[in-house]
């Protein structure tokens, strides 16, 4: 049990990632020159795109955790990482949606557009919420592990289909929004910064999932100790 207590290096790793990201964002805000026709507002991309990437990466982590969760009489830790992935994923979808709409206002003059990516993120938010509701609705841990793992697989299978259908639906009804158009202008320094941001946020998301998973494991262990103690007297 000792090794699971937060040793120094895991906490420092998290802090290191956090500081790295802050400095990256700092540079994005101050260092980079402002871009011609969009002024400075394009800088929000360095927060919006990495957060969106992390949100979708969480659905992949949930997928892998669900595969292991379905294996026979698994110890049960895998599905806890699945739940952690759903929670972190939910948070990142929220960040993505908020930064996306803030970014949309100056660019297109509206707080919300039915852009394919934004809409898919919104549906992903609902799916993560559904996963967590299902988790709390089933009390028997053995059944809950199986049922939630199955939902994890369904979510991962459906996200690409949702994305394709929503983007098709959008392109049919509106010429590709500036956002896609804007993709062309990302080059050189801007691109490397963006990729750095995506890597940074994704690693941080993985770290959050890992730590939250351990916490859930500790919580379960405490509950078991309490059950064992209550059985003893």
């Amino acid at each position, binding site marked *: 049990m000792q090794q699971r207590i937060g040793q120094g290096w895991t906490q420092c790793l998290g802090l290191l990632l956090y500081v790295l990201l802050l400095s990256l964002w700092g540079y994005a805000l101050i260092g980079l020159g402002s871009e011609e026709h969009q002024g400075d507002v394009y800088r929000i991309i360095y927060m919006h795109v990495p957060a969106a990437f992390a949100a979708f990466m969480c659905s992949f982590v949930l997928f892998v955790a669900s595969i292991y969760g379905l294996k*026979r*009489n698994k110890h*049960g830790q895998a599905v806890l990482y699945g739940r952690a992935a759903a929670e972190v994923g939910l948070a990142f979808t929220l960040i993505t949606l908020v930064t996306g709409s803030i970014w949309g206002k100056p660019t297109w003059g509206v707080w919300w557009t039915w852009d394919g990516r934004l809409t898919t993120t919104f549906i992903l938010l609902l799916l993560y919420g559904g996963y967590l509701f299902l988790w709390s609705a089933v009390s028997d*841990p*053995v059944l809950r592990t199986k049922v939630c793992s199955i939902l994890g697989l369904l979510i991962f299978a459906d996200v690409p289909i949702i994305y394709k259908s929503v983007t098709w639906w959008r392109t049919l009804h509106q010429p590709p929004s500036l956002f896609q158009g804007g993709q062309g202008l990302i080059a050189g320094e801007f691109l490397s910064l963006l990729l750095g941001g995506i890597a940074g946020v994704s690693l941080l998301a993985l770290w959050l999932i890992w730590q939250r998973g351990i916490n859930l494991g500790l919580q*379960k*262990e405490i*509950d*078991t100790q309490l*059950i*064992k103690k209550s*059985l*003893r007297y």
Partner: protein
Amino acid sequence: MLQISSLSFRYDHVELFQHLSFTVKPGEILHLRGSNGVGKSTLLAILAGLLSPSAGQVTWGKEEAGFPSLQRGEFFAYLAAEANGLYLQLNALSNLRFWSSLSSEPLAEETIRTALLRWGLASPLLQERLAVGFLSTGMRRRLALARVSLSPAPCWLLDEPIYGLDTRGVELFREALQNHVEQGGMAVVVSHDLVSLAGLTVRQYVLQDKWR
């Protein structure tokens, strides 16, 4: 022949039981004893295939006792403690017809009706008119026991079989269990009520309480 070797089950982190090993030979009744919460029903659920153990093996139906290798569902007939597994909108007859149709050789209408008679569900009103939902708990338990007795499965897994039965019902249960065992069948019974197995040759198996 049913063989359990070093079976253990962990409910999340709490080890319910560990390294259970015993065998049940044809013609034998195993009476599972042990205080509440020791895992008797869980053990039956594992044998029936509803739960998978965290370790250990359950093997059944070896050829030497004349039983060809059967699937788990064909070897075990399971009766849960607080549920009879009946379709409450349908009448008694169609319930039994459905369950018997699921086992390998579906039974003739006659055998089903005689089983209903044997279990005291004789009146045609009871058999066909009335939906099972209107029957009393005792009557439903008899119907569930009739389902088990009709099943060709050699090994019965009975969890509190006489729950809700009157004295006549208990006698009927003992008779059915008796001739099932005489025909080379076997049974694993969980029952706190000693009356249910009185007068039958029974082997006790006490599940140790791991904590106290």
